[in-house]
């Protein structure tokens, strides 16, 4: 019960008692499986738990209360855009017509969803300045894979097989180099400048006839807009390569910067960041990809097509031989995309521009509050975009308190921690992203908490280094978990009661 503080739960297996389960469906006839050869059947039932309905519901309610969540408070996790998840989105995705539709249903029975997907593609193409959009990728990293496979197909279609390298800054999300490797490319890591920022000149110098693409996040993972991005893209194209934009930070630039207009050839969009689809404890996401003219032929299949008569249909397998093919079983994470569509429609053009304006305003305000306090280093003085880097480097030298400790102490103060130690190019960095949906009172309270922690670091460092004190558990033995992995529970009670049929 939350009123007396959260409490840890036994596992669902430990709570199981044979015979306690609830019958949900009628028992089938005894001979239901008689036509199946015995050697294909299971010899013993799986050891699933058996709980009464109250015990089961309480288990998951009590477990849920051990989580921090946007619905409960401020979640300034840089690069993750933990904004408010409007409730109408959840309602919309559960409409039986959307939720109950089979992905192989004939096109004429799926017109509502097909229209929604087609319209969503138009919205995202307009926002990104791209020629066309695929909604298929299941997450940002999946979108990156789609994008880089299209880059590969483009070069190969031109008979240009010598391009084997993808250039990535060392401050990039780890998915960028991992994606390039998965698509068969060699990753060339471009070191950052001494201050941690992307080194545009080093990028230009590394371009050459072996370069297939560059992958760059803009605004960068430091929350800074790369003013020289236009020159870099020109140089990339002059070298015969393509420019991929990691769209993780799109929330900063809605209505202000359209990557396609600036010359980017391909970008992914994280709907769970910019367009408010819930993060779900780590997923599902959705990672639509926008492409410029040159990559349109290579888009994954199937695309959603609008016929001259105004009806919609899915492209058939093999209809567009230049496609890189399918990246997943079906057309997309439609349930997620319904939520993103609802979000876009509820904002409209002006509302979306306001989202970015307010996100950038909030980040600069919070940055100003921290800079003014002197409690932390603010490595980049210039105006930030939707997020900014603070650092505990000076604090650590003075008190021994590290960024990780500050993060843990924030949990005691009722806030989620920012992203810490990313990007790795900034010493003791924390990446703070307030989003546009937090009030000035919340921003002030968070700044006050961080400032107070810096004071504690000087006065009572152990209070910080041993935090959290008020969370459901204290710091964990992560080394032990990795050395002797325990990845599953074993049922404690054997399933020995035969089914009563």
């Amino acid at each position, binding site marked *: 019960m939350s009123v007396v503080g959260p409490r840890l739960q036994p596992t669902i297996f430990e709570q199981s008692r044979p015979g306690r389960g609830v019958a949900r469906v009628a028992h089938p006839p005894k001979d239901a499986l008689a036509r199946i050869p015995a050697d294909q059947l299971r010899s013993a039932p799986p050891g699933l738990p058996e709980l009464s*309905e109250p015990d089961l519901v309480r288990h998951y309610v009590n*477990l849920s209360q051990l989580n921090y969540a946007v619905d409960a408070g401020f979640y300034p996790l840089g690069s993750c855009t933990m904004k408010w998840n409007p409730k109408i989105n959840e309602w919309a995705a559960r409409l039986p017509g959307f939720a109950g539709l089979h992905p192989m249903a004939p096109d004429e029975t799926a017109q509502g969803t097909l229209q929604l997907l087609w319209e969503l593609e138009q919205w995202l193409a307009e926002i990104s300045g791209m020629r066309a959009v695929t909604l298929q990728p299941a997450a940002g990293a999946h979108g990156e894979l789609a994008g880089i496979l299209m880059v590969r197909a483009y070069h190969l279609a031109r008979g240009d097989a010598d391009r084997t390298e993808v250039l990535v800054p060392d401050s990039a999300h780890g998915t960028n180099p991992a994606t390039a490797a998965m*698509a068969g490319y060699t990753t060339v890591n471009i070191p950052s400048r001494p201050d941690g920022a992307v080194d545009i000149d080093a990028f230009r110098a590394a371009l050459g006839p072996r370069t297939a693409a560059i992958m760059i996040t803009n605004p960068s993972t430091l929350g800074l807009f790369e003013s020289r991005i236009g020159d870099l893209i020109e140089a990339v194209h002059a070298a015969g390569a393509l420019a991929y934009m990691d769209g993780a930070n799109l929330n900063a630039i809605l209505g202000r*910067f359209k990557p396609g207009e600036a010359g980017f050839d391909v970008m992914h969009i994280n709907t769970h960041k910019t367009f408010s689809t819930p993060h779900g404890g780590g997923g599902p996401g959705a990672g639509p990809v926008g492409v410029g003219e040159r990559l349109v032929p290579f888009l994954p299949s199937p695309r959603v097509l609008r016929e001259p008569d105004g009806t919609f249909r899915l492209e058939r397998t093999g209809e567009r031989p230049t496609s890189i093919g399918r990246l997943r079983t079906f057309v997309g994470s439609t349930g997620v995309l319904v939520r993103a569509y609802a979000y876009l429609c509820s904002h409209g053009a002006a509302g979306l521009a306001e989202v970015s304006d307010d996100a950038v305003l909030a980040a600069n305000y919070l940055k100003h509050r921290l800079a003014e306090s002197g409690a932390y280093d603010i490595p980049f003085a210039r105006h930030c975009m939707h997020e900014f880097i603070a650092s505990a480097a000076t604090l650590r030298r003075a008190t021994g308190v590290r960024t990780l400790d500050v993060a843990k102490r924030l949990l005691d103060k009722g806030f989620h921690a920012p992203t810490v130690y990313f990007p790795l190019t900034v010493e003791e960095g924390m990446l703070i992203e307030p989003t546009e949906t937090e009030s000035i009172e919340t921003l002030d309270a968070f700044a006050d908490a961080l400032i107070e922690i810096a004071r504690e670091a000087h006065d009572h460092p152990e209070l910080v280094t041993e935090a959290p004190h008020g969370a459901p558990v204290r710091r964990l033995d992560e080394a032990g978990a990795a050395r002797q992995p325990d990845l599953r529970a074993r049922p404690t009670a054997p399933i020995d009661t035969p089914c009563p049929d």
Partner: protein
Amino acid sequence: MSYGPHTPADRERMLSAIGVASVDELFADIPAGLRASRLNLPDAEPELSLATRLEAMAGRNRTDLASFLGAGVYRHYSPALVDQLLLRGEWYTAYTPYQPEVSQGTLQSIYEYQSLMAELTGLDVVSASHYDGGAATAEAALMACRATRRERVLVSRAVHPQYREVLRTYFAGLQLDEIPLVAQGPAAGTTDLVALERLLAEADRPVAGVVIAQPDFFGLLEPMAEAGRLAHAAGALLVAVVEPVSLAVLAPPGAYGADIAAGEGQPLGIPPQYGGPYLGLIACTTALIRQIPGRLVGQTRDLDGQRAFVMTLQAREQHIRREKAASNICTNQALLALAASIWLAALGPHGLRDVAATGAARATELEGALAAVGAPRVHAGAYLNEFAVRVPNARAVHRRLLDRGVLAGLALADALPDEPALSDALLVCATELTTPEQITRFATELASATGGAA
């Protein structure tokens, strides 16, 4: 409308604190030449009119049909408690458990998911989940390549054709060969083991993994144990593509020697929702633990010795290993894994068996009803709850039945244009949601559409 809280006075306070006159100044880093053209998009829609319009759009989907369509996506009964729990904001508005001290709910739920899937599959290591069945199967095949340091994978033509397409996309730089089907006789429609043996024996083309689905795309049960023996004799791994509800009654991959199981978790109470978000399953033997892609959650202790859960073995993953990572996957499908766990726990072992066996019983009834109107099964082998029937002009009949409110499964000519032997066949399935009335209606309409005996 906006969900932002700022009043004009709030904005003024923030601007003046920062020391700028307008928000535009904060965007000064964007050079004039790169500034966006106007957003050419509709105006904001108030919640009521948006809700009304969305309802109308959803209503234009035909989800009122008597549906016999499965083909990898299966509708099952979901107890009322499942969605009520999923709507708790503590679950769906949390993110990846980066701060484990305030994420024990998500972490324990994933550990329990891993445990439940380990029980179903008979394999001890289960990833915290992948995008969907097709992507999970592709990742499992890549995993076999890493584990064996070989670059060639064999996939049965009885694996879902769209899974095979995904495999081709992921295998752009590697080798992928298809194993043909047995053409005739009692084993028709299953993987041709003689051909498999021949493919495994090709000189200088060592095989990393053999991918076979159980049940296969046609609903048939495959000789998994024998396929596993052949694969292992050639130094290859067996990748079983599984349907998790069937594992309530069918032998689990761990029992027939599969090294890796992959599959689609959607049938575990997740709505079809036109293709996703779904739940990609990957499980493997302990020997392959370092090769499995994606998140894993393990049990550990906190400083006070309390049991707790944490993401573990992260050094395999992209945020640490970057270009050398096992996969580029970053997220998992945590909310879907939670949904599947709650669904499984709500049904329990007997309830799950009831679901699987009721589907089989309804399928038997369906088989009889369709045969009686001149639509016999195409294949002779054993099946669980899905099978193909022979219907002349299947595609046109399928279309005609749609007008009469029956979704007559899948016209195989659409899904498998390269299998002429199946051009006159429908793939149909039954689950516990299929009613005897729907079966009668299907048979009656089919008889009237084909002129068969009713």
